[in-house]
């Protein structure tokens, strides 16, 4: 240890209190879960409820993992909702049943991998565009992605002519809707994505580069990091995650339309922020992001489950987001 334990240092706090103050996100989530459990007399802990929560949040989880990484590099992405919407529409258009006369490619039957390929490429391309604008165009991420959001929306409407892209093949829907034993497929995909993101952030050079860029882009450049390339990479990865999200969402709904996933960017950003990913860059973990998604998920799910009046849901949600982030921030307060 380089630490001079002599006069200057104190032993780090141990035990429960230290754990709580280090894991506010987890504590928030667990408290909300217990609260909901009490309010529903334990029914929210039953498997069908847990399963629903997992299914409901899985698509958002992909978006959150993507934007979470972007925020770690000190960026932001407002285009998520419409990119996911466009991807879902593209994917759906290649997965419509061939006997559906109103299909975009009526009478054509495409192989099952095509919707995924098309969707992921679409998402990836939008991510790439965002990344290039931010990295090489030097646009603030907020404004670059606001622009691409508008572009994605335009493409979606032009592609679908505002019509619903529906009647998807059962084989396609099963990919999203199926289960492996009691565990929904979607949850498995999320788990796989989490492992990949965890390895990326924790165990690869690129992941460390993301933190470095978010922490101090100039210093990252001086340290030999290709800041532009890594920035393009993070937006592209995120785009690919949105692509997967869009494909799975289309399969889950059995359709896609212009309203699909609208506003998902705010949900995803709120979720990762609640999960402790800091908007000042350089801070955040995969587990935090997932906890954030689950926290917002349990708020939504709980309020729906309890039948809270929809007008009041908005109030409650607003206050809980504020409170959750407030407690999370407290742990940094002393340092500034």
């Amino acid at each position, binding site marked *: 240890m380089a630490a001079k334990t002599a006069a200057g240092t104190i032993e780090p706090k141990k035990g429960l209190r230290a754990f709580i103050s280090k894991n506010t996100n987890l504590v928030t989530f667990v408290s909300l879960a217990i609260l909901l459990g009490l309010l529903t007399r334990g029914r929210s802990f039953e498997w069908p409820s847990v399963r629903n929560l997992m299914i*409901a949040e899985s698509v958002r989880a992909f978006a959150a993992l993507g934007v979470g990484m972007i925020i770690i590099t000190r960026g932001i992405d407002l285009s998520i909702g419409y990119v996911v919407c466009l991807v879902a529409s593209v994917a759906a258009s290649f997965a419509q049943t061939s006997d559906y006369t109103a299909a975009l490619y009526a009478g054509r039957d495409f192989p099952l991998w095509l919707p995924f390929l098309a969707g992921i490429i679409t998402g990836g391309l939008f991510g790439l565009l965002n990344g290039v604008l931010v990295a090489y165009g030097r646009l603030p991420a907020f404004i670059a992605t606001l622009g691409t959001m508008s572009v994605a929306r335009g493409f979606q409407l032009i592609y679908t002519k505002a019509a619903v892209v*529906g009647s998807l093949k059962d084989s396609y829907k099963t990919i999203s809707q199926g289960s492996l034993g009691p565990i929904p497929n979607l949850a498995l995909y999320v788990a796989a994505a989490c492992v990949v993101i965890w390895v990326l952030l924790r165990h690869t050079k690129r992941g460390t580069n993301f933190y470095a860029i978010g922490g101090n882009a100039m210093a990252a450049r001086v340290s030999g990091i290709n800041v532009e390339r890594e920035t393009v990479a993070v937006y592209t990865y995120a785009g690919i995650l949105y692509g997967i999200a869009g494909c799975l969402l289309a399969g*889950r709904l*059995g*359709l896609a339309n212009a309203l699909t996933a609208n506003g998902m960017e705010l949900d995803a950003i709120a979720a990762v922020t609640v999960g402790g990913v800091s908007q000042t860059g350089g801070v955040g973990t995969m587990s935090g992001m997932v906890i954030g998604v689950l926290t917002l998920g349990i708020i*939504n799910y709980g309020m*729906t489950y309890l039948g809270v009046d*929809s*007008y009041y849901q908005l109030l409650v949600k607003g206050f809980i987001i504020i409170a959750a982030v407030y407690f999370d921030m407290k742990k940094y307060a002393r340092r500034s």
Partner: protein
Amino acid sequence: KPVIGALIRNLDEQFVADYAANLKVLAAKAGVELKLLDSRSDQATQLDQLNTLITQGVKYFVIVPNQTEATEQMAKAIKAVGGGAAFSNIQPSVAALKVGPNFFLASSPESVAGSIQADIIDNYFKKNPAALAPGKTINALFLLGQLGHPAQKYRTEAVKNGLKAKGYKLNVIAEDTANWKPDEAQQKMDAWIAAYNGKFNIVITNNDGMALGAVESLLTAKYTKADAKDGTILKVPVLGVDATQVALKSMAEDKLYATVLQDSVGQSSTAFELALAMATGKYKPGFKAWGLSPETKPGSEAPANDAAVIGQCYLVPFKAVTKENYKSFMTK
């Protein structure tokens, strides 16, 4: 070459998009220059667009307004340049029609969609009385459109009132907005199935998108029965509005129970023919648009409830879309 302005509420909505598409077809056929603008659900934008077109010299309009309450102001602005307009989808206010004889209702009031849903539900329970809860009680789940949206408000009110008028006891098990979105509807439905399993006997939604989200959720939760004798393989019927092609497909598969057609072709044709007649000076009171004559007797719902403007009201019928007739609405 006559010019007609079309101010369209929101082209993201399929009904409105279909309405606009038909307008374009009609304009091309009639050799009319159509200036079509989309206000993205923002009334302020629609006012700006109206001003712009007036500045460009456009006098005659087909309007799908954002809000009933804004129609009078728009009518006055059009009146000021000596023009006229036909309003579709969202009804104009009585005051808007009173602005002048050149202002028309060419619509199927949103509330009719709700009333038709009530009729369909009534039919269903008449055929399947066993599905009713004791005491002629309907235990309903409601999935609403974006709160404050006129279609959300009027459709919901009308179906509730319609059921009560038919002597049912309506018990709202849960009611929440899904903002017209299938994905939100599916999530709400997932939670409700867990929370109210077996406690509801119908799912009523404000549009097909949400209805399909609910259907998907029920299917995934295996909330199904072996047969489709009552018209659906789901344990409870799900109702939508719009009669989109996907919804019809779902009906063909015995999933969605029924929907309501808001006739985009009928409404747009009626409104267009009125505007064209004005623009070419062919309009006279009593003019027949899309084969429809104006109402003569005041009805129950504004603005067609005011004798002073009843001659300016063209009511395009809504249609119930059920097992019996859905095939006729499908594109070939």
